């Protein structure tokens, strides 16, 4: 059984017991435990079920490479699936449940898949489930989905109870990894004066050296102290280098509250770091060995077994068999023995066995079997014994050795993920049997120079002394590359330990037959076995990417940290080619999964996106505004009174406005000031009509096209004085059109003398609309003349309106006598209130965007975004009067000369009047006879705007119809999606006051 040892455990504080819950059971651990070590201490070796066969799974590792020990953690707004036990620090009240089983971890129905495993090889689903056709969707897929997936989905209605944030940071040198190599590299770099950031994903500095021995007593503590004393160094623990991106961009994933959820503050902080140079001292990950039954709970990585004993004072078992192809695993045997536990046998696949460490182990009386292998592990939910055989043979069992844990080591693989994210290449190191970074082909930065280097074990320097020297060189190199003068540090001199070389063992025993290969796991979580990879190769899925995708090898939540190298070695072996020829799959960020919430950062709820507010926003809010998002603005769609529906409100607002007086908050309209000697010339290019001839104090409606000829914006242009114009744009258009103007001025006509400023938000603007609009303005008084002749239609004046500094434009979008009054935004709310009070006697009514839309439609005015959709040219809308014939050029003119734009077959704007007065549905198309070559019904037009007009008490619409203007009076059919056919007569688009008398009073 696994249990807590009487002593040992560098990380835990035995004076501070911690209580936690596992599947409802109350268990005890100590502060400093990880969830994994605490579960082991409670003899909970089995921690989950595998993905495909639902086989029992125990913890195999002690770090972020762990594929098995994943849990549903927390409750309510703090619930999270797939939490990795090996990287989850224990805290009081922590509560987890195991995953991917039903009804329980101990008894799981899904395990049936296991008994059928033989019928479910890699990719079996590509070959089956095809008949009958509907069965895939209704039978097979639902079944597969249910048995797949790992953790529980968080509750759909519960909001995340935590907060998250980002942080921008800049450094000359960033070191990822706080083991001895990282610390040394950071120090050497920092000595040059460079600004250095070093991060460690664990809560502790020092890494494996704290288990396997420091270069010298207190080395780590000393280095950490020195670094803490340097003010050009920033040190972060619990922060993982998640991904390396172009131009030195590095993501740091800092877990601030995972270990202390009771404290205030953000849970995660995502660092967006811009690094001059990056050093990855991310260490190495131990590889499992591929023998039958290597997935049975109790089979663990040798290094992990050592960690649990040394760091947490936890023994994975009383009798730990060790199996290896290298010297390092002997450290585990020695550690186990020193902890007072049994090591029945060390199985060393190498005929020659190990070196110094092997002698030490033998000296302690441990039995060592060279040239031997594990033929098979027995046991179901826990290891019972190992059956030994000759590594050279096919697995004939020589003897059975009882044990309750197996510590395996297939050698170590440098963690090259961060090196590879941005294009760093790898070389295969034959001697050490591993891929390591190819220094000659690093990822390149904006200057075409390498910006990542690896240090220590991550660079393939597994030996402590070599690793330190490598780290020192990396620190020096990085500092120099970042532009600093650097020198190496003085290092403790360490004797090269005389380990005997590793001998690659990809299959154990090497001659294992199909039976054994079908039980030798590569990917524990996804249930990929040696036989699966061999099958893929046999079927021609020869590219490592094909094999990965066909077998799902390395696609589990550990992204193949344990399985990839073993898998591609098997693949290479099967294809009879060298490992480098096979190559690796692409390493993609993040190194280990990071929370979606940390990626979203602060952008949630009210600050998910900016909401733009006008100075009158609060008034609208307080007066029943029914909001409509327009770009980032919120505009009142209408104002709801009492129980009325939006539709009723819109009708009321229109009637009141046409009858007496309405107010519209028009502040969102774009207002661009264009000034300079060439301003007129510039606007003549920008608009389809002639603007240079506009007289000061006058307004003119203008159209803007894209260079591709399509109508892109419209608005009223005002000539403020001789050399300055005010261009109104649509609400959505202000920034876009401002950018458009700057683009042409800066990149095409840079010699023209024109300046543009976006004054949109300087002005609050109110549409004062209706027969009584003049009266209410006159009530406000002031020195401006707004009389019929003083300010004629399409005229502009400015001055004091009451106490306000106002600009007044007499323009009419609703077809009534109306004015647009603009005042500085800081006076906007006051103006609105003043108009409200003064308008009371006229039954003043605020109206929203929908009433505005309907009223302009009644007048036959087009609306950008309704009549236009990016495929419409002004000529389609019968706006020829607004297209200057005199001008040689304007933006879009050339495009409009193209054959299809000139075609007489283009659909043209007309009014549409339903025969029965009903309202044509939004977006309906007018059908024509027959079908096209693709069997689609022919069409001859579509509706662009369609409303119920309270003024005319009937449905009105505008639409684009083939040769429309020539077909006045003709009735065409608009089939609705509801089956009814709407018959509409083609009429003039102006439904209300065609003579325009109302606006000219």
């Amino acid at each position, binding site marked *: 059984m696994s249990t807590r040892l009487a002593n040992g455990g560098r990380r835990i504080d035995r004076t501070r017991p911690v209580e936690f819950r596992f599947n409802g059971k109350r268990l005890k651990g100590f502060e400093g435990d990880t969830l994994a070590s605490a579960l082991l201490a409670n003899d909970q070796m089995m921690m989950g079920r595998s993905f495909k066969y639902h086989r029992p799974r125990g913890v195999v590792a002690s770090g972020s490479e762990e594929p098995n020990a994943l849990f549903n953690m927390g409750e309510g707004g703090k619930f999270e699936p797939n939490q990795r036990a090996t990287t989850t620090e224990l805290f009081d009240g922590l509560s987890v449940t195991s995953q991917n089983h039903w009804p329980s971890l101990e008894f799981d129905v899904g395990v049936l898949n296991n008994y059928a495993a033989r019928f479910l090889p890699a990719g079996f689903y590509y070959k089956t489930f095809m008949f009958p056709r509907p069965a895939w969707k209704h039978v097979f897929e639902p079944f597969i989905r249910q048995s797949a997936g790992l953790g529980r989905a968080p509750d759909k209605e519960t909001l995340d109870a935590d907060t998250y944030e980002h942080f921008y940071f800049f450094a000359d040198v960033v070191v990822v990894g706080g083991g001895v190599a990282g610390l040394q590299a950071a120090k050497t770099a920092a000595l040059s004066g460079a600004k250095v950031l070093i991060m460690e994903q664990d809560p502790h500095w020092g890494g494996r050296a704290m288990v396997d021995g420091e270069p010298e007593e207190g080395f780590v503590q000393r280095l950490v102290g020195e670094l803490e004393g340097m003010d050009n160094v920033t040190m972060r623990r619990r922060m993982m280098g998640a991904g390396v991106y172009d131009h030195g961009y590095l993501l740091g994933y800092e877990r601030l509250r995972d270990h202390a959820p009771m404290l205030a503050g953000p849970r995660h902080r995502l660092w967006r770091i811009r690094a001059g140079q990056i050093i990855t001292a991310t260490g190495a990950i131990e590889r499992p060995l591929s023998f039958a039954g290597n997935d049975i709970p109790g089979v663990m990585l040798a290094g992990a077994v050592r960690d649990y004993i040394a760091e947490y004072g936890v023994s994975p078992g009383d009798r730990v068999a060790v199996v290896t192809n290298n010297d390092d695993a002997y450290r585990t045997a020695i550690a186990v023995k020193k902890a007072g536990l049994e090591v029945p046998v060390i199985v060393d696949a190498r005929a020659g066995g190990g070196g110094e460490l092997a002698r030490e182990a033998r000296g302690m009386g441990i039995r060592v079997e060279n040239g031997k292998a594990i033929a098979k592990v027995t046991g179901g939910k826990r290891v019972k014994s190992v059956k030994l055989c000759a590594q050279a043979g096919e697995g004939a069992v020589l003897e059975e050795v009882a044990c309750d844990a197996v510590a395996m080591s297939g050698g170590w693989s440098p963690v090259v993920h961060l090196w590879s994210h941005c294009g760093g290449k790898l070389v295969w190191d034959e001697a050490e049997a591993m891929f390591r970074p190819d220094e000659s082909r690093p990822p390149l930065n*904006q200057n*075409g120079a390498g910006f990542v280097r690896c240090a220590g074990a991550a660079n393939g320097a597994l030996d402590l002394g070599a690793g330190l020297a490598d780290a020192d060189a990396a620190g020096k190199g990085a500092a120099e590359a970042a532009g600093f003068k650097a020198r190496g540090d003085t290092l403790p001199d360490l004797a090269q330990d005389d380990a005997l070389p590793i001998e690659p063992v990809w299959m154990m025993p090497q001659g294992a037959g199909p039976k054994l290969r079908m039980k030798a796991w590569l990917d524990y979580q996804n249930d990929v076995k040696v036989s699966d990879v061999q099958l893929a190769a046999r079927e021609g899925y020869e590219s490592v990417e094909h094999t990965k995708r066909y077998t799902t090898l390395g696609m589990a939540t550990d992204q193949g940290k344990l399985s990839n190298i073993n898998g591609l070695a098997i693949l290479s072996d099967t294809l009879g080619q060298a490992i480098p020829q096979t190559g690796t799959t692409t390493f993609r960020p993040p190194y280990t999964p990071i929370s979606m919430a940390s990626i979203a950062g602060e952008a949630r709820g009210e600050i998910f996106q900016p909401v733009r507010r006008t100075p009158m926003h609060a008034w609208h809010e307080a007066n029943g505004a029914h909001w409509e998002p327009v770009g980032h603005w919120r505009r009142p769609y209408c104002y709801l009174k009492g129980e009325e529906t939006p539709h009723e409100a819109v009708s009321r607002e229109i009637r009141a406005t046409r009858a007496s007086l309405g107010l519209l908050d028009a502040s969102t309209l774009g207002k661009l000031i264009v000034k300079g000697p060439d301003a007129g010339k510039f606007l003549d290019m920008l608009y389809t009509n002639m603007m240079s001839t506009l007289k000061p104090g006058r307004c003119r409606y203008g159209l803007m096209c894209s260079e591709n000829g399509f109508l892109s914006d419209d608005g009223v242009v005002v000539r403020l004085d001789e050399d300055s114009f005010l261009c109104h744009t649509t609400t959505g258009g202000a920034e876009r059109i401002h950018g458009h103007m700057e683009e042409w001025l800066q990149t095409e006509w840079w010699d023209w003398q024109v300046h543009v400023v976006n004054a949109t938000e300087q002005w609050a603007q109110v549409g004062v609309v209706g027969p009584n609009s003049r009266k209410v303005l006159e009530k406000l008084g002031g020195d401006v003349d707004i009389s019929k002749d003083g300010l004629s239609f399409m005229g502009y004046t400015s001055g004091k309106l009451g106490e306000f500094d106002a600009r007044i434009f007499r323009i009419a979008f609703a077809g009534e006598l109306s004015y647009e009054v603009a005042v500085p935004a800081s006076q906007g709310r006051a103006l609105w209130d003043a108009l409200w009070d003064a308008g009371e006697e006229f039954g003043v009514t605020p109206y929203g965007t929908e009433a505005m839309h309907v009223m302009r439609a009644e007048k036959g005015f087009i609306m950008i975004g309704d009549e236009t959709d990016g495929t419409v040219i002004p000529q389609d809308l019968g706006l020829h009067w607004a297209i200057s014939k005199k001008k040689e050029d304007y933006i879009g003119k050339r495009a409009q000369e*193209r054959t299809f734009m000139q075609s007489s077959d283009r659909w043209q704007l007309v009014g549409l009047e339903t025969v029965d007065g009903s309202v044509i549905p939004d977006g309906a198309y007018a059908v024509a006879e027959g079908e096209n070559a693709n069997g689609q019904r022919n069409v001859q037009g579509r509706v662009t705007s369609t409303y119920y007009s309270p003024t005319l008490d009937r449905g009105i619409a505008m639409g684009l119809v083939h040769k429309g203007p020539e077909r006045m009076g003709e009735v065409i059919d608009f089939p609705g999606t509801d089956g009814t056919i709407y018959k509409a007569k083609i009429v003039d688009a102006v439904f209300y006051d065609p003579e325009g008398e109302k606006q000219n009073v």
Partner: protein
Amino acid sequence: MLILECPCCGVTGEETEFHGGGEAHLKRFGPGSADTDFENYLFMRENPKGVHLERWRHVNGCGKWFHVARCTVTLEIFGSYSAQTLEPPQEIKDAISAKRPGWSWRDFS
């Protein structure tokens, strides 16, 4: 995530401060021009695997347009320069040639 230097305000900022504007040095063809000239101007693009001369605007900054010479394969940046030019200045051409001997782009090399 690119870093770009704006030659107008001197800021070296990350991609999110800027807005890409596509291929640079396009010659505008107006009314009366040939169909193919206009099509080339509006739609046909070099889209090279390698050195690309392109437009950027410092939209969350000084608001100015400028040009950048950038490799679309390595994302290496050879330099940024004024948007008020008809072709890249000699020092930019030299900077590119130094890193990509024998490069050429449209009529430039």
